[in-house]
């Protein structure tokens, strides 16, 4: 391993970390604004022009708030839980190609930290580890609502993971690789080559599983404010709570990258237009997360398990079987 590669990788890691930490903050601003507009409100308006500096105000508040470790909590686990959520979200991003490769000052940059040959498996696996944050944090807090939230985390965990894994299996069979770059190159031929046209069922299933994975509104039952306060976050304050927050939003952004890369052609042929197209797709999927939050009700945990095990998993299996039959003959 030569030094240039090491330096390049560290720079890429730092850039991704900074950009997506900032995006997580700005994402909250967009979320509040879009939700407000959909509910005929104005949203944040006072801090800065159109409330743009609200993000900074929230950040200052989070950083300066006292970090409380309540009595009766299991200290070490309580302290490490938010780090798990935030860290795994960013670790998962290592295998995501954010842009096509480009040349700057005669140096070719691959905007992916590590092009693993098991990319998609790695991303899904590490993202799934992120749910240990709510699970451990909820169980370590001496709080019944946190405990309920931890139980729900486990329920969500065993439900969606099967669906996301099985639904992604059919595209993997078609592409014959687990690297997201290979997925992208498989679809470079334009819109008609996108995997969504041959795998619409897998696309919808993976999308649904992405909502469960990130815990967004139809499946927002881990930290369901109106039922169990803030769930696992009830006992947290200050930056520890902020880490949970950053992890959730970073996960939303990363899964918004993964869905277009797998199903919607990614960055296409690698031109500037393709890169901009990828950003547009990511923006749409991120917007959809906010859109559903304004429009749809939450499901109960038992309904989520019912949906995942009795509806989506059979559909995914049937999809895999049909894909296999079509590929065989």
């Amino acid at each position, binding site marked *: 391993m030569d030094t240039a590669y090491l330096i390049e990788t560290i720079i890429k890691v730092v850039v991704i970390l900074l950009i997506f930490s900032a995006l997580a903050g700005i994402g909250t601003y967009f979320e509040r604004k879009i939700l407000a507009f959909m*509910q*005929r409100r104005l949203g944040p308006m006072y801090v800065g022009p159109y409330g743009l500096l609200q993000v900074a105000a929230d950040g200052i508040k989070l950083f300066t708030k006292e970090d409380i470790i309540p009595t009766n909590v299991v200290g070490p686990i309580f302290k490490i839980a938010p780090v798990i959520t935030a860290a795994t979200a960013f670790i998962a991003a290592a295998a995501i190609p954010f842009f096509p490769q480009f040349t700057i000052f005669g140096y070719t940059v691959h905007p992916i930290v590590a092009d693993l040959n098991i990319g998609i498996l790695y991303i899904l696996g590490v993202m799934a580890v992120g749910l240990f944050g709510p699970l451990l944090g909820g169980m370590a807090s001496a709080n019944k609502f946190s405990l309920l939230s931890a139980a729900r985390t486990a329920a969500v965990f065993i439900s969606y993971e099967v669906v996301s894994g099985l639904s992604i299996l059919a595209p993997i069979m078609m592409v014959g690789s687990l690297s997201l770059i290979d997925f992208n190159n498989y679809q470079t031929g334009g819109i008609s080559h996108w995997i969504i046209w041959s795998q619409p069922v897998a696309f919808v299933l993976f999308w649904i599983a992405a909502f469960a994975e990130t815990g967004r509104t139809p499946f927002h039952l881990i930290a369901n404010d109106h039922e169990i306060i803030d769930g696992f976050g009830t006992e947290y304050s200050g930056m520890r709570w902020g880490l949970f927050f950053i992890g959730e939003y970073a996960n939303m952004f990363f899964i918004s990258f993964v869905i277009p890369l797998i199903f919607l052609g990614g960055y296409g042929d690698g031109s500037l237009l393709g890169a901009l197209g990828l950003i547009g797709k990511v923006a749409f999927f991120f917007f959809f997360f906010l*859109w*559903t939050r304004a*429009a*749809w009700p939450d499901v109960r945990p038992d309904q989520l398990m019912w949906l995942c095990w009795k*509806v989506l998993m059979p559909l995914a299996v049937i999809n895999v079987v049909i894909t296999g039959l079509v590929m065989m003959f």
Partner: protein
Amino acid sequence: MKMEQFNDRNVADNGYFLVDIEDYPTDGWGKFKRVVKRSFRGELFVGLWVVLREMIKFDIHTVQYPEEKLPIGPRYRAVHEMKRLWESDTERCIGCGLCEKICISDCIRMDTKIDENSRKEVSEYTINLGRCIFCGYCAEVCPELAITHGGEYENASQQREHFVDYEYMLTPIDKMKAGTQMEFEGFGAITPHEDERVKKTPLAY
């Protein structure tokens, strides 16, 4: 404005209808059919469209309070005001004491004296806003239309027993000279544009 639509009490003919709610399925096949129907009827997209439509229409209802304020109705009973006579700019209050007598929460206190022109004059007049229930009896009983209610509803104070005195309530003389003293339209006054906002109360379904 036509009143027929408000006088027509038979609301059943005007778009009201009973919602058709099916029985819940009991057997497995019925439940399966319900799931399929709900999955493919696209109700989720109706919800998505509704919120997107509202976002595109951008019909924001927020009132940014300290900068913008909603208009209040003429009948609104907030902190009292003392009016002046239009002819002479002198105070209308004749110190009769009726408001003090009628006040059911005993929050008005007044003292009077005979001035140099042998007229009765108010020497002290305070209202304890911590006790006042803003019932409006004082304004109603006042024979001179001197004490009325104003529109000042922002009553932040360091203590509950916030008093207003005569000088505070009296219309300032420069405002009087400018002719901008507002008469209290009072009880029975109609809110402007009330006709457009009135809605029919359905009496029968």
